């Protein structure tokens, strides 16, 4: 039995939020050290503001100022803040009803210790030193009331808010994929045959057609036939190769499903359906658990495969 392989996978993007008329005014207010709430038809003031009245479904148009001070309506304490949370030291998570608002806002209270937190405590906003029209313009709340800092009108209305999102995963391979990757690290291409349909899958996987694990191991050759392909001319975010390049579907000799890989060693406009190709392996000392051990495929000095030999794999 092989042990599974695992590796980190981090996905990140700086999303750009179009705020629209209501949230745009709210974020503009934060930049200017103002907090705005929205008034719904029942007279209640919501902070953060709602864009649509949950009872009447009408657009909410009236925004009113509320105070930068408020009362803790409920709380919990975190001893070990996570990356990306408002504070990097222990703090209270609190539902805070700002003076003038009817709903509570979830935010951090920099109380120093759990003992200083209580329901009903009075808190005030600590504004971020640099404000851009973002929910992070409220750095956190702190105990006390005191004098509210002056509002500062800071320029054009805010219409977009950048929201950086990072997702960190540990990607773990299946048993079938692990076998395939360990064989690749030894310079072999390993497939497995489905016990029901008898098709050879490279990489191996639970047979998608029959829903059963593949078991019988089959070593396939590192030669194959280009079934079809794309010439990638377009650059895009996150791309790891310089266009133009050819990505082909390659039906390895002995396999029943093609793998995608690069074709190099001839001009892109000379790549053909049916072309016979061979894997070009990187230097052995660089091999690891990845199909990137094969740098690309190159043309073989063989006649093209007849269309009929691969037409059922398109």
């Amino acid at each position, binding site marked *: 039995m092989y042990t599974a392989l695992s*590796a*980190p*996978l981090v*996905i990140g*993007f700086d*999303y*750009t*939020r*179009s705020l*629209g008329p*209501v*949230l745009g005014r709210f974020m503009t207010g934060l930049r200017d050290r103002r907090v705005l709430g929205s008034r719904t038809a029942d007279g209640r003031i919501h902070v953060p503001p*709602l*864009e*649509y009245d949950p*009872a*009447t*479904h009408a*657009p909410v148009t009236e925004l009113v100022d509320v105070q930068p001070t408020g009362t803790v309506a409920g709380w919990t304490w975190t001893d070990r803040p996570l990356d990306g949370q408002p504070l990097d030291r222990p703090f209270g998570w609190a539902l805070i009803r700002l003076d003038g608002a009817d709903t509570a806002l979830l935010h951090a209270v920099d109380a120093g210790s759990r003992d200083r937190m209580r329901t009903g405590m009075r808190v005030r906003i600590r504004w971020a030193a640099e404000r851009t029209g973002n929910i992070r313009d409220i750095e956190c709340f702190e105990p006390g009331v005191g004098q509210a800092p002056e509002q500062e009108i800071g320029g054009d209305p805010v*219409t977009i808010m950048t*929201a950086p*999102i990072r997702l960190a995963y540990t*990607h773990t*391979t299946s048993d079938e*994929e692990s076998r395939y990757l360990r064989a690749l690290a030894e310079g072999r291409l390993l497939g497995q045959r*489905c016990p029901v349909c008898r*098709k*050879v899958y490279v990489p191996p996987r639970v047979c*998608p*057609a029959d829903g059963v694990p593949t078991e019988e191991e089959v070593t396939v050759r590192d030669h194959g036939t280009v*079934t*079809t*392909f*794309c*010439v*990638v*001319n*377009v650059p*895009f*975010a*996150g*791309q*790891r*190769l310089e266009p133009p390049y050819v*990505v*082909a*579907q390659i039906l390895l000799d002995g396999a*029943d*499903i093609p793998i*995608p*890989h*690069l074709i190099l060693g001839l001009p892109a406009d000379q790549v053909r*359906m049916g072309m016979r190709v061979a894997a070009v392996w990187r230097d052995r000392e660089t091999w690891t658990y*990845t*199909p*990137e051990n*094969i740098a690309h495929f190159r043309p073989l000095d063989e006649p093209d495969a007849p269309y009929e030999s691969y*037409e*059922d794999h*398109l």
Partner: protein
Amino acid sequence: MRRAAVLGTGQTHHRTRRTDVSMAGLCREAIDRALADAGVDWPEIDAVVLGKAPDLFEGVMMPELFLADALGASGRPLLRVHTAGSVGGATANVATTLIRAGVHRRVLAVAFEKQSESNAMWALSIQPPFTAPIGAGAGGYFAPHIRSYIRRSHAPGHIGSLVAVKDRRNGALNPYAHLRQPGITLESVQASPMLWDPIRYDETCPSSDGACAVVIGDESAAEASERPVAWIRATAMRTEPTFFAGKDHVNPRAGAEAAQALWKAAGITDPLEEVDAAEIYVPFSWFEPMWLENLGFTEAGHGWKLTESGETRIGGKLPVNPSGGVLCSNPIGASGMLRFAEAAMQVMGRAGDHQVPGARVALGHAYGGGSQFFSMWVVAAEPR
């Protein structure tokens, strides 16, 4: 089975960036138009069904949570549908099923995408560990299968460009379309850059912000409507794995089986003769002939002949994408529902300048994933 009908449709003005509205505002622009078109108000809506493509496109997990108020879901059932690019169609079909099951009298279905909040090409090219870095977005995925179609059908190389010219000119007739290019020509399309050979720039869909909504009602709601409705004659959905040995990427089995089931349920024996207009999910122009075959409008290998003959233009035997289709507007999650809504608009006689004269029966079609999910419906001016 109980009858169901489209009472009204609504859509946004689709643009590269709708930075004037939030996701909620985008949805409401379509919803408010659909309610007005249907002549109904919020108290008459019994349930809401929401569809959109993968959450990575906006980076909001389960947007139905924060959108619930804006979608009018307070106090009502709210369902979320996920079937990649076909989701707009699947969402309309789920709403139809709620009506046909007798659960509700009127259901609001809405679908959206706000592509400007991120980059779909990036989101579709995530590189997991232990794989080779060769993904190149949806174009990189579908271009090889288009090449296979051209080889298999012996279609002339300009067919994809003909579709692009037709759809972009149709889009110029549609006030909501993102791309409106009345002056486009075969020469200008063929002069545009080759992005994912054999797909040219002008043969690919734009990246759009947009939303679509439909109000679906039962027979009594349809009869209470003061305006013409679109009777839903049949719906169908089928799925297959993205990859399996022997998968036909050109003519996928799930699409063909869904179409066969759809025509049978609709009582249609000769689709080309009996369907007056078709809104087919064509994100890359070559998919028009491919789906014409997969849907059974022509035999395999002959779809391009219908395109080449001009019979898929407005005024032809089977106008395809009179709205301009996905090639003119592609808010991904909404694109399927736009096909369904535009089909309904045709048989309701409310398609404006892109109306197919006398359209009585129309197809709405969507696909998603790696030609994995298929959803479709047939709507008609008469219940049967």
